[in-house]
């Protein structure tokens, strides 16, 4: 089993989000970057599926050299090798095209990505990548197993779940449930330094979208506190003032 895991490098979950240059740029000053949490569980599942020599896991990242600590972390967790496409991504289509260009003749059985990145929340890369490669995709999976020459996945649907069997190769966007996060051990951290990290130059892509402005939500008003002894006041306020019941 040869697995490719797409990883992105995102602001830490506790980051306070601010913008610069007239609200056109995300302000990276003082921001700690991490491996996207959803990608981390994709990676964890990939490593479980290839345990004990049952295959290899390659991670790929599209981004500049500043993401190398995140790539090394993925190697420390257990990926066998890594690829970095040396370009600052402009949109999801750009990223998907770069990954597809690398993956198209590498014969991966399975390509995993997080269901979305926690910065732009697009959930676009996995399905775009699959479309470019003309292979099946499934978004938001909670379970992934292998049965013969098929992957068996559990997909989230509104109010329930759907189980699908998909022939390899395919692309899946993983969500919580697919695996537990793995903490790198000392051996992993030591060996990560020497594992291969290949740097590729990007191919040319015509992008079709651009973020022109950011905004932060308006601050919410003050909380109205209600005495614990008078919950009927809450019911009244929700009905008469907030008009939600």
């Amino acid at each position, binding site marked *: 089993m040869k697995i490719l895991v797409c990883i992105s490098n995102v602001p830490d*979950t*506790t980051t*306070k*989000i601010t*913008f610069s240059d007239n609200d056109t740029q995300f302000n990276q000053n003082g921001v700690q970057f991490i491996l996207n*949490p*959803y990608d981390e569980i994709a990676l964890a599942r990939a490593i479980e599926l290839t345990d004990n020599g049952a295959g290899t896991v390659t991670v790929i990242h599209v981004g500049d050299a500043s993401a190398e600590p995140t790539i090394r972390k993925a190697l420390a967790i257990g990926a066998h090798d890594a690829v970095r496409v040396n370009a600052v991504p402009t949109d*999801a*289509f750009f990223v998907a095209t770069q990954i597809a260009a690398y993956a198209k003749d590498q014969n991966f059985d399975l390509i995993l990505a997080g269901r979305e990145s*926690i910065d*732009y*929340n*697009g*959930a*676009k890369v*996995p*399905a*775009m990548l699959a479309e*470019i490669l*003309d292979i*099946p*995709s499934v*978004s*938001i999976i*909670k379970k992934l197993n292998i049965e013969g020459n098929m992957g068996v996945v559990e*997909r*989230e*649907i*509104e*109010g329930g*779940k*759907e*189980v699908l*069997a*998909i*022939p390899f190769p395919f692309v899946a*966007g993983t969500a*919580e*449930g697919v695996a537990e996060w793995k903490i790198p051990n000392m051996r992993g951290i030591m060996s990560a330094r020497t594992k291969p990290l290949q740097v590729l130059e990007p191919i040319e892509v015509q992008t*079709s*979208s*651009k*973020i*022109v402005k*950011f*905004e*932060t*939500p308006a601050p*919410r008003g003050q*909380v*109205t*506190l*209600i*005495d*614990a002894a008078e*919950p009927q006041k809450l019911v009244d*306020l929700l009905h008469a003032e*907030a008009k*939600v*019941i």
Partner: protein
Amino acid sequence: MSVLVYVENAEGKFKKSIFEAVSYAKAIADQLNTSLTAVSIGNVAQDELQKLGNYGAAKILNVNQDALKSFINQAYASVIAEAAEKIAASVVVLSNSFSGKGLAPRIAVKLNAGLVDGAISLPELNDGKFIVKKTAFSNKAFAYVELHADKKVISLTPNSYKIVEAGGQAAIEDFAATVKPTDLTALIKDIVRATDKVSLPDAELVVSAGRGLKGPENWAMVEELANLLGAATACSKPVSDADWRPHSEHVGQTGIAISPNLYIAIGISGAIQHLAGVSSSKVIVVINKDPEAPFFKVADYGIVGDAFEIVPKLIEELKSFKANN
């Protein structure tokens, strides 16, 4: 030029989020001075299809082929792209549902279109520019995305656009789509749907609880409160991690992001990762025994106190409210 909306059905019926998507697509068609066509895939009765006219669809392409009985991403994306080409659509709208999230990117690639996922407002059309607002950084910010390809695909976040009844009629036309066998290699083995429950992404009211509830055995009061309100239930991450509740109820940065009209948080601290998924709720109620809990900073209404005392009382008050209203 025209606008196409994909109307996903759940067992032959359209949900509220689909009427939102149709209303939204109709408003875009009006902005562009053109008409709206809907494409439906699967077995949907004529009277259900007819409902779409009321929200502004002038025409419905009805694709009801055996091969397309169940949802397969690849095949459905092909059919929707084919419908878009047939009517020369310049804009394709979908609901940003779980299926929509898997379809929109494939359709955008097929059509060579620009894509905005999770849109939360109508496009701004200025000097030939087409700019759509969406949430970013897990609800901690908004981004305005300019699409500069000729064709555009937009997936609309549920609960972010009001349904508008236009009172029109739709002409239903059968559409025989090309189905490539290679698009149908995935097989559906099983579908489990809890039909009696309100689904979380669509819910207008949500009652949620966290680790403050101490254990799964204490969820009966949460469910009772939710049932009374006709609300969906949700939970914080540690609660689903501990298997007190299913993963599908986990909301937040790594769970589902929701924007209901009312979010009631019981025994949840309001950690930044939790808030990321719920802070765009229109009204937030917090019940927590710790007056310093960060959740109170974003709440509209709050009660400081023990959930085990407050929630049962609240249930009684709601019962008498319902009896009188």
